[in-house]
């Protein structure tokens, strides 16, 4: 069950790479050996550390000016690859509450909504502006106002588009399972009707 999304003003860290995949966000070995809630140190592990295990100073999230970042600025197709929801958990454990990108992997984006992490889609030009802004500003504090679907960058208001239902669910921390269980009668009616027209679908043969 997700926590309600609260208004946020936090440091924005740029990660302007295309096709950031879920394997890089959380390597599979780590998600098997470590619990949800403790995945933060392994988020972006392949990029974040030097071979000797020390933080790679070249990696944006290791730069002192982006310390404590809660908003991440990605490129196109952020979160592509596997369906592992632990990619969202790892970002959450790292402290990230909002990812802004040109586009997202479909399953990753759905997983964000399930966990109260806000994915914001912006066009390439606005993203480029934000990236430059984040690089120049000390500190790059960005406001996220989900209620009004806008970002606030030092006086500039940047609107973004989000499904109203998704927005409500994030703002209220709604639980999908709880919501759907209210439709259980509809599901049972569907099954009854379907049994007459697609009996092979409603029971796996095995005979």
């Amino acid at each position, binding site marked *: 069950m997700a926590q309600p999304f609260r208004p946020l003003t936090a440091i924005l860290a740029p990660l302007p790479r295309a096709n950031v995949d879920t394997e890089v966000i959380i390597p599979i070995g780590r998600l098997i050996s470590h619990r949800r809630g403790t995945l933060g140190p392994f988020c972006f592990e392949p990029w974040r550390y030097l071979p000797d295990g020390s933080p790679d100073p070249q990696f944006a999230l290791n730069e002192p000016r982006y310390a404590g970042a809660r908003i991440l600025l990605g490129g196109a197709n952020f979160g592509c690859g596997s369906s592992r929801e632990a990619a969202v958990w790892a970002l959450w454990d790292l402290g990230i509450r909002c990812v802004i990108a040109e586009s997202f992997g479909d399953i990753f984006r*759905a997983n964000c909504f399930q966990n109260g992490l806000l994915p914001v889609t912006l066009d390439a030009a606005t993203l480029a502006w934000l990236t430059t802004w984040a690089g120049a500003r000390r500190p790059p504090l960005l406001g996220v106002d989900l209620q009004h679907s806008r970002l606030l960058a030092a006086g500039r208001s940047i609107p973004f588009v989000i499904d109203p239902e998704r927005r409500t669910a994030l703002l209220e921390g709604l639980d999908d*399972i709880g919501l759907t269980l209210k439709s259980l009668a509809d599901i049972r009616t569907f099954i009854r009707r379907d049994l007459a027209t697609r009996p092979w679908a409603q029971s796996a*043969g095995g*005979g």
Partner: protein
Amino acid sequence: MGGETLFGRIWNLHRIKPLGGGVDLLFVDRHLVHDLEAGPRLAALAARGLPVLRPDLTFATPDHAVVTTPGRATAATAAAADGTTSAGSLLADMRRRTAAAGIKLFDLGEPGQGIVHVIGPELGLSLPGLLIVCGDSHTCTHGGLGALAFGIGSSEVEHVLATQSLRQSRPATLRLRIDGRRAPGVGAKDLMLYAIGRFGTAAARGHAIEYAGAAVVALDVEARLTLCNLSIEMGAKIGMIAPDSTVFEYIAGRHYAPKGAQWEPAVAAWSALASDADAVFDRELCVDAAAVAPQITWGTSPQDVVGIDAVVPDPDAVGDPALRRSRRAALDYMGLSPGQRLEGTPIDWVFIGSCTNGRLSDLREAAAVVRGRRVAARVNAWVVPGSENVRRAARAEGLDKIFLEAGFQWREPGCSLCLGANGELIPPGQRSVSTTNRNFVGRQGPGARTHIASPATAAAAAIAGAIADVRKLPPAQVR
């Protein structure tokens, strides 16, 4: 207003009700559950006091975290993903909780165990027109039978267990036509890698792909599964092919397929599952199969792919600065230089298996190359059958002997080196030709360098000890 698409038809069949804002509540016909999800998700459901609504439509098997050591007696244990069973064994938990919920488990050593996307079609669980989900992005594989199948996250797995339904926004539609005839040595894997290279790994994001055209219709069912399997690597969580008599013949007689009085009505219903001639797709793409050579990846995204006889592309030839940077980083990771010929690049590993290419026809394709030849001395070559049934069928026709005599390891079924979730890893800096689906940084182990290719190309690499063009392999020694 144009006619209906295959995708739209099946989607509409499963709509329980619209939820507003373009979101539908969809009924789920089959839910496949693997070992990384079963224990933790069933535990979470139990913690909420909720039962599994349709255990009879839910099927489980261990594949991701089990070791594939020949003769494995018990599976490796591994801590669960989210801490609900931190110290326990995923497999032990899976066994206990599926039994308690009344969910059929295909356990180690049993016919039916294997990679979820191999066993679904093989057992007749996956059928045309069904809506199939699994907590794994390669669930698009089942679209090869004309099913509407897609991967879901852990929260959605829990949602399906509790409600046998999903809340989903309807994606846009994309038709990818593949016309023309494939050249010898070119398979479904090559066709799809070529398309991903040409259109990009994000090309079909937000879309459901329908594959059509003469080169698609000409594919057998297992090749169609390979084609649809790679949909997610082009960005689409759904990929599908209209079911035809090739599919119906494949399904007939399979264990969980409809039988007796149910068969004829089922085939009649499946035969109606096609896009209308005047159906309108949101996007259309085309590929000429005749233009496709055997493919191999050079970088760290499936779109970093070229024909086997090509050279490594120069990042500086790319206009987009972000793409240029990512290509430079990819070459650095892969230990390759621009302009370098891929053919002849020495390799350390070959992996034949996975939900992409772990079926009987894939093993036959590789064995045909391997027969009468030897694996190069420096190469660790593994064959991991996609399922227990594939393993047994391959043994029955002597494929295991061909691989073993050539110097391959012949292992037990599972996901294995495709992603190393079971601890089987390619060591840092070592180079592998794999019949898998992802060459991401660290995918086959931290620092591992992956080249994705077809079973024939992977087999040729094992023999040559280097990336090789299967079409140019010297003749095998007659023994």
